C-alpha cells in the first residue's frame, strides 16, 4: 500500500529528478512480476524485484528522486496496482512517457505518482528534469539540455486527486467524488 514515502511533490506538484530511461511497451509485469505479488502486496518488500524481468540492473540502481522516462504505452498489460506502488516505494514520484496504458495512468494518479504524457525522445539517461504544474497545465524542463517540453494537461478531477496525494487521502477528505456534475 502506498504512503507518502519518497515523494518529492511540493504543494504546487513540481517534481525534480534524474531521468532513468525505459523503452516502449513496458508492461506491468516487467515493472513487477505477478509471481511476486502472490506472496506479498507490500510495496517495500516488492521493491527488491523492481524491473527484474526487464532490466534488473536498472531496477537495483533506482534511487529516491529518480524520474522514469519511457516511450509509448507505458504500464500496459495487467491492471495490477503494485506496478505503481512499487515504483513509489523505490522513491520515484513521476513518470514521463509518450503514452500510458489507461489503467496504469489512473492507478498512478490514485497513488500520487505523477504521470506526464510528453515527447520523451530528447531526454537522455541521467538528465535532470523538472515538472511544473500551472492550473492543470504541465511543462517538463530538461535542465541538462535547457529545453522545455509540453506535458499536456490534467483534468480537474485528476489534478484534485493528485494534489490530495492520491485517491485514499482524497476520499478520506471528501467521502465522495466532488466537483463533477
Amino acid at each position: 500500500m502506498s504512503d507518502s514515502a519518497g515523494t518529492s511533490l511540493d504543494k504546487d506538484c513540481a517534481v525534480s529528478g534524474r531521468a532513468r530511461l525505459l523503452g516502449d511497451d513496458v508492461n506491468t509485469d516487467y515493472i513487477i512480476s505477478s509471481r511476486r505479488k502472490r506472496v506479498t502486496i507490500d510495496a517495500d518488500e516488492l521493491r527488491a524485484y523492481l524491473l527484474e524481468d526487464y532490466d534488473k540492473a536498472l531496477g537495483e540502481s533506482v534511487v529516491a528522486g529518480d524520474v522514469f522516462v519511457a516511450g509509448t504505452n507505458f504500464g500496459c498489460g495487467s491492471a495490477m496496482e503494485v506496478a505503481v506502488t512499487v515504483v513509489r516505494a523505490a522513491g520515484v514520484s513521476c513518470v514521463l512517457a509518450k503514452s500510458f496504458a489507461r489503467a496504469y495512468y489512473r492507478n498512478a494518479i490514485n497513488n500520487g505518482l505523477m504521470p506526464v504524457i510528453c515527447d520523451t525522445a530528447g531526454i537522455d539517461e541521467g538528465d535532470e528534469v523538472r515538472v511544473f504544474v500551472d492550473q492543470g497545465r504541465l511543462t517538463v524542463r530538461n535542465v541538462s539540455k535547457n529545453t522545455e517540453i509540453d506535458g499536456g494537461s490534467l483534468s480537474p478531477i485528476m489534478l484534485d486527486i493528485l494534489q490530495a496525494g492520491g485517491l485514499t487521502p482524497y476520499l478520506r477528505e471528501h467521502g465522495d467524488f466532488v466537483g463533477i456534475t
Partner: protein
Amino acid sequence: MNRSYPATISEKIMSRHCGRECRAGETVVCGVDAAMATDGSAPMAIDYFHAMGGKEVANPQNLVFALDHYAPPDNPATVALQDRIRDFTKRNGNVIYEIGAGIGHQLMIERGHVRPGMLVVGADSHSVEYGAVNAFGAGIGSSDLAAVMLTGKLWFRVPESIRVNLTGKLRDGLDSKDIALEINRVLDPKDASYRTLEFTGEGARSLTFEERMILSNMSTDAGAKAGIFEADEKTAAYLGMSVDEMETVSADANAVYAKTLEIDLDTLTPKLARPPVGGAAAEIVDLGDDEGTAVDMVYLGTCTGGRKSDLENALRILQAGGGKAPGVQLLVTPASDRVYGDMASNGLLAEFLKFGALMMTPGCGSCCGTCGAIPGDGKVVLSAANRNFTGRMGNPKARVYLASPEACAAAAVAGRITDPRKFLS
C-alpha cells in the same frame, strides 16, 4: 433518455449512469452496477477501502470476488491473502466464488452479474469482456475498486469509440481468436488508447456469444478501454433471458466515431502472436510464417480459450489428427466449474483424458504463471491465452506464442506449429 445528438453505445451507457446526457471527452461520475475483484487484486482493494475510512460496502450484493488467480494456492502467504477476502466477504455480505469455481470474468457473465446496458468494472484488465453482453465493462486498479466499494460510483472520461465493422463469416478452422489477433495487428495502440471498440456488421452478428466474449476480452490487448457488442437473441439465450427483457443499447445511425476499422472474415487466415513483446505492440504474423516451429507445451484454457466451444473446436482437430504427438505436454483449464461439468457430461472430458491432457482446476490456470504447470527453460509454448510477454506463464526463459484453440490442437498433434485447416476435410 431523449438525446439532442446521435450517440455511440458508450455515450449512451455512460449517460444512463451519470444522470445526464454526456458525450465523448467529458468527465463524469457514474453509478456502477456491479464490480469484480480477483484474489490478485482484492486484498489491495480491501486495504485501500479501509485506508479510505470505509466501514460498509455500498451495494454489497453487487461486489463479486473470484478466487481465480491462485487456484489452488501453493504457499501459506497466498492462502493468507485469500483468507483476507473470505473474512471481508463474510462481514460485508458480498458474493464470493471459491477456488475451482472458475475465472471471474466467466462467472460474472455465466452467473448473471452482467446484463445489457450495465456499467460494470473489474479490478483486472480483462474486465472488458463484459462488453460481449452489451455492457460497458472496463478494467481498473484496486484503488478505483475501493472507491466503488466506498461510494458505489467512479469517475470516467467518456471515451470516443472506434467502429469495428466485421463483414463476411468465419471459415472452417478459423476462430474468433484469429479476429482478435488481426485487430491487434492492424490497430495502432495510439488510436485504440482510451477508446471503446464497438463491434458491428453482419460478421459481428454471425459470431456466437462465446466468440464475442473473446473479441471483447482482447480489446484491452489491442490497447482499448472497452469492447462492446450489440445484444441480440444469442445474448439473450446465453444469459437465459428473453430478448424483450434485455435493456439493449444500440448506437445511433449517425453516431460519431473516431475511426472505422474494416475486418473481412471471409479472407481471414490463421494468426499467431510471437514472443516476446505481447499486448498492443505484439508481433502478429500469419501462422504460416512460423509453421514448423517445434512446440513443447500446448495450453488450452483461460478467459479467451477455456469455454465449451473453444474446447470442442480443439478436440475436433485432436480427433482428426489422431491425438497428440509424444513429448508434447497438453494442459487444459476449463473456464468454470460449469464448463468442467459440461465436459464431463457430454464426453469431452473423457476424450481429452484419452489424448493425455493434463486437466487443471477451473480458474486462471497457467495463463499468468501464478498457479498450475509452468514451462521449463527454453521451452516453446503455444497457448490459447491472451498474453505472451516475457515471464508470462511463470518462466521468463520460456517462449510463449498465442493462437486459436484450433491451432493449439494442431500443434499438439504435429508437435510443431501447423495450420489447423490441414486436419479438416
